[in-house]
């Protein structure tokens, strides 16, 4: 009888936020900041009949990867869809701000963001939005001083305000399971109807907004296999490049011109159909 080597199958997407960090950081070692035993959860969920998590679904750690000192942040997709609320948002932003402060004191610390997020946590409304705005400005501040690397590696994907945060990062790494976009497929279907986009059509969705498509569209910088060594290697390579203006943003004008041509194609106008071509050079 052949035994299936189940334990040897190493998929990154199935790991929890803390397990992902342990898999990517040197020696699996890290020191957690504002961890679960500090019990800084969201005060807004219980009044709405939801159970808060003791770390608000955001894990912030200090450690090293490929020898680089790093602050690494992982969002737990399983808790409230990886949504960012007041507490989780403050944890992410403060971690990035402290890294920038350390860089200015000649102790450079890069940042790693493992983004699995549906975006702002709707139950926390403007507090979540304000949190994401602060995260975005912290990313822009830190990327002038140290590389800020984002990883989108799971089917929850990265949407809404956190997708904007991802695109502000120095470097974005994706896997075949990841998705990156402003509005998620369900939201598009709900707002524009199933004729615009069928949210149950997984093949179409991954062709449109999956990380492989995003890589070919030039919207992410590296596309790697769904395992920790591949992702860690890509992170190491990104950190080795040091501070730089994100490549994606260097040709912003040209990209905008291309986008205008894309959204208003003369012959396809008015059909209401979404075209599925991944590459739109």
């Amino acid at each position, binding site marked *: 009888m052949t035994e299936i080597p189940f334990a040897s199958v190493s998929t990154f997407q199935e790991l929890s936020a803390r397990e992902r960090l342990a898999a990517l950081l040197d020696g699996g070692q890290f020191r957690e900041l504002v961890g*679960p*035993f500090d019990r800084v959860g969201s005060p807004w969920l219980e009044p709405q*009949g939801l*159970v*808060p*998590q*003791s770390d608000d679904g955001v894990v912030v750690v200090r450690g090293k990867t490929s020898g680089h000192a790093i602050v690494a942040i992982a969002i*737990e997709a*399983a808790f409230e869809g990886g949504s960012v609320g007041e507490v989780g948002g403050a944890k992410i932003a403060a971690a990035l701000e402290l890294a920038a402060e350390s860089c200015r004191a000649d102790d450079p610390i890069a940042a790693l963001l493992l983004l699995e997020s549906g975006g702002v946590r709707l139950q926390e409304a403007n507090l979540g939005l304000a949190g994401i705005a602060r995260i975005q400005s912290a990313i822009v501040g830190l990327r002038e001083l140290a590389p800020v690397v984002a990883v989108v590696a799971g089917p929850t994907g990265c949407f809404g305000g956190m997708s904007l945060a991802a695109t502000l990062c120095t470097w974005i790494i994706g896997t075949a399971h990841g998705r990156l976009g402003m509005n998620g497929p369900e939201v598009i279907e709900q707002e524009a109807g199933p004729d615009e986009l069928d949210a149950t059509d997984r093949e179409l969705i991954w062709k449109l907004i999956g990380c492989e498509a995003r890589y070919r569209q030039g919207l992410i910088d590296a596309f790697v296999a769904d395992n920790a060594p591949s992702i860690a290697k890509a992170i190491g390579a990104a950190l080795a490049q040091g501070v730089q203006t994100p490549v994606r943003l260097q040709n912003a004008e040209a990209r905008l011109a291309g986008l205008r041509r894309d959204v208003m194609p003369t012959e396809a106008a008015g059909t209401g159909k979404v075209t599925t071509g991944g590459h739109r050079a």
Partner: protein
Amino acid sequence: MTEHIALSFPAQVPIGRRAHVGVVASGDLEVLLEPLEGKLAEVAVHTKVAGYRMTWEAVFERFFARYPYALRLEIRDYGATPGMVWLRLVQAMEHAGKNGEQ
């Protein structure tokens, strides 16, 4: 609405370190385990699913009969079955360095 359940059980053995396992996600739960001074185990359950106090009591009675450690357990539950609760509790004990039964 969420229900809060507080329980306590007699305990004999001190436990060395704390442990954290699980996620507040559909069918799952978060467990925070900490050492407690004295001969008592305290449990605080916060659950999304109200009306199952007797089931929680039965799970913990069985659990502390097997693991009579003086500790504080905080449970944040999102509809886990008793079997899932048991697996998470045993996992937390493993993380706290207690693999076998006492």
